[in-house]
């Protein structure tokens, strides 16, 4: 039986699945139900000076028949009194001593940080998460992503927190930056024990085309919200990996953004996350989704021979490289398995109109033909093909030795002739 327990910057957890700081982690009763359902840990809904929320607050992005493929919100931090939250943290810790509670915080001044950190730790926090990520409402007040976008401020506040805290400090980064690395490095310089990312992405989820108002609509107005859910996973994976591979970074990472199932979690782990956090999928389907996450992770680890979560964390990071280091002479072409082909010719349309005009209809059959001498191996046909296993991208031995663009530029390594540039 693989061991699912984890350690993220000194925060130990019975399994790598945490509730992200968000509505599912809003109160003690909820978090206790989540622990009952099997969640490893929880990041409490961000504490600070309680705010007031608007209605409505959420928007959903339906793609085809998939409701909530993307999700956004204009909600702020906790709207509950600090004392109530702290009391519930203490109660929850008493009942669930082995499941970490990480308290998310967002305040302004050094004195406020000192005070809220002390009270959180006194209440029983196993770790802190500094919310430098919220892209709406709080940043206008000089908090949230306003901090996460300014490395110097990030570093200063992180160092305050680390000075005041006796428990590990995670810094939660905003994705609303052009390059995540300086922000992760700033947190590291400030003394953070780990990084959580991503928070939500600045977005307008949709527009009400009859009322001429973006959504979610509050009366006759709307505002930009934070995008999250399944659709943001690729962005989150990239940011996690960008930090994980950064030489000199090396902090543990708690990965967040679009985790729906065990497979998503495994991807985050292979790119360097030792824990993952989930918000939207729980909002859409409830705490029970963790059962498949745990079970599927366990099956995956068993099938790959990983005894502990740590054995797999970062396994795919070395393979995340720069474009200039990719082998320009590595060549693939599309092959169509005529037995599996259903003759829809989506590949023909895609290749003709969207790629390199090398898949052609044939006389007397619906199965198209790939002109391998012209195929650039772009994958487009494979992506559109609805028949599983029908189009495969096959390696071609073209006789050329491996050569990267960087090799070519620095010492003239020979590149194979271009294909599809007619």
């Amino acid at each position, binding site marked *: 039986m693989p061991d699912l327990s984890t350690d993220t910057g000194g925060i130990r957890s019975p399994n790598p699945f945490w509730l992200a700081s968000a509505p599912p982690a809003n109160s003690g009763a909820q978090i206790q139900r989540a622990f009952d359902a099997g969640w490893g840990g929880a990041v409490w809904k961000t504490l600070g000076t309680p705010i007031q929320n608007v209605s409505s607050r959420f928007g959903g992005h339906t793609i085809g028949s998939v409701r909530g493929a993307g999700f956004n919100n204009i909600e702020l931090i906790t709207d509950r009194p600090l004392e109530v939250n702290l009391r519930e943290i203490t109660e929850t810790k008493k009942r669930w001593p082995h499941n970490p509670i990480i308290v998310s915080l967002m305040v302004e001044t050094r004195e406020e940080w000192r005070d809220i950190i002390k009270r959180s730790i006194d209440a029983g926090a196993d770790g802190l998460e500094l919310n430098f990520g919220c892209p709406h409402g709080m940043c206008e007040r000089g908090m949230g992503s306003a901090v996460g976008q300014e490395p110097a401020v990030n570093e200063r506040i992180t160092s305050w927190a680390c000075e005041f805290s006796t428990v590990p400090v995670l810094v939660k980064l905003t994705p609303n930056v052009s390059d995540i690395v300086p922000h992760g490095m700033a947190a590291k310089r400030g003394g953070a024990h780990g990084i959580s990312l991503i928070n939500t992405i600045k977005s307008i989820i949709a527009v009400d085309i009859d009322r001429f108002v973006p959504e979610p609509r509050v009366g006759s107005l709307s505002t930009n919200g934070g995008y999250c859910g399944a659709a943001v996973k690729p962005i989150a994976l990239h940011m996690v990996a960008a930090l994980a591979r950064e030489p000199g970074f090396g902090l543990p990472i708690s990965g967040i953004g679009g985790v729906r*199932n*065990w*497979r998503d979690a495994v991807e985050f782990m292979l790119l360097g996350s030792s824990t993952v956090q989930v918000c939207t999928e729980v909002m859409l*389907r*409830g705490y*029970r*989704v963790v*059962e*498949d996450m745990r*079970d*599927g992770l366990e*099956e995956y680890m068993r099938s790959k021979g990983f005894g502990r979560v740590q054995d797999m964390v970062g396994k795919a990071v070395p393979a995340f490289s720069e474009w200039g280091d990719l082998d320009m002479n590595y060549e693939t072409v599309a092959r169509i398995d005529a037995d599996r082909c259903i003759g829809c010719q989506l590949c023909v349309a895609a290749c003709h109109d969207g790629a390199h005009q090398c898949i052609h209809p044939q006389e007397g059959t619906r199965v198209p033909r790939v002109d391998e001498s012209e195929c650039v191996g772009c994958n487009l046909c494979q992506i559109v093909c609805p028949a*599983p296993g029908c189009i495969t991208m096959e390696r071609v031995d073209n006789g050329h030795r491996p050569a990267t663009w960087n090799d070519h530029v620095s010492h003239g390594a020979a590149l194979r002739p271009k294909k599809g540039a007619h």
Partner: protein
Amino acid sequence: MPARFPAERSETAFTDYKLPLLPAQAAVEAGRCLFCHDAPCITACPTHIDIPQFIRKIAGGNDRGAARTIFESNILGMSCARVCPVEVLCVGACVYNDLDEPPIQIGKLQRHATDRAFEEGWRFFEAGAPTGRRVALVGGGPASLAAAHELRRLGHACTMYERRGFLGGLNTTGIAPHKMKADRSVNEAEWVLAIGGVEMRTGAEVGRDVALADLEREFDAVFVGIGLGADSRAKAPGEDLPGVLGAVEWIERMKLGDAGLSGVRHAVVVGAGNTAMDALRELLALGVPQVTMLYRGTEETMGGYAHEWQAAKEAGARAEWRAVAGAFEGNGRLRRLRCMRVDAARAPVEGSEFALDADLALLAIGQSKLGAALAGLAGITVESGIVRVDAHGFTGRPGWYAGGDCANGGKEVVNAAAEGMAAARAIDRELAAGGGTGRRGATHA
């Protein structure tokens, strides 16, 4: 115990009526499940399988986890996936029925995961630490198999008495072969018992070869899962003629050997319950040109499921409603049924007599009840042949439990599985609390 039924049996002519899902179809179907909260499909399944959870696992590519979720609640989940009347259980309760969309094909998804478990040889359960307690199981059908498996997980030693030479009960001998064939049920029984620690006594009939009193002396608890008895008779003249058979008896013959249909031109099935529905479809599938159901009630009052009758009609069955057989006639062999109409109160209608030429009549008017076998034990109540039990299968006599058809009067395999499991847990609780038959001198009269 290897299945040693002849390779050439009438039932082997059948193919699956409900086709399995291809892996890609399973993924699409699983992706449709809404993962309902407090899902009605779970409530509708007698074993309360966590259906949304196992379907979610299939959707995420975790078939092994899906199979575990299923077997955790129902160790007979493989055969249930094939034989359950899902239309009136899980699938019938799916919320999609209230949208204009087809309900989730839960049985087929369950089959997808459990078939894979059998193909890949996945095993999930181990016997519990030995408790030193011994439990007897009377009968080797679904109820006893589910009970034995759970008892072994809880660490109790088991001995199973089965009067026949093979296991599975009616799951082996009764299920329509377009749902499942006999060897699959026997293989399932072996797979279940591979948990180990169940001593098998096949060919041993309790009450004849083994006395109830001996069981009480030798075991801390007894689970009775003896099912139902022989087909009920029509009590009409001529019913002993060759060509007049009990339906369950004929179905068993058809499943385990030769259906004996050569030369049969017209078969009549008497009764309109689910055994009758199966017999109609089986006779037609095996090439009997004309198959008629004779029933004293109407389509509204029939006991068989509407979806089964629909399928029988589509296969070519016809019905004589409000009609009963007064006599079976023939010269050394059945040739004709003398019938008459009855009114709504089931009284014969004067002058309504008619004849049906037939060379085979199957009586599907119920099975006898075996509860009387226990009637001699103080504390056990038997009503109309059915053993009375509480919600946990307890009979009222310390250490004695019952479940499945003998206690519920005849339901489905999935009910037998649920009741066997519930009884096993109740036995465990009773033994843990120091109760039981008194093999160890527990303090009861």
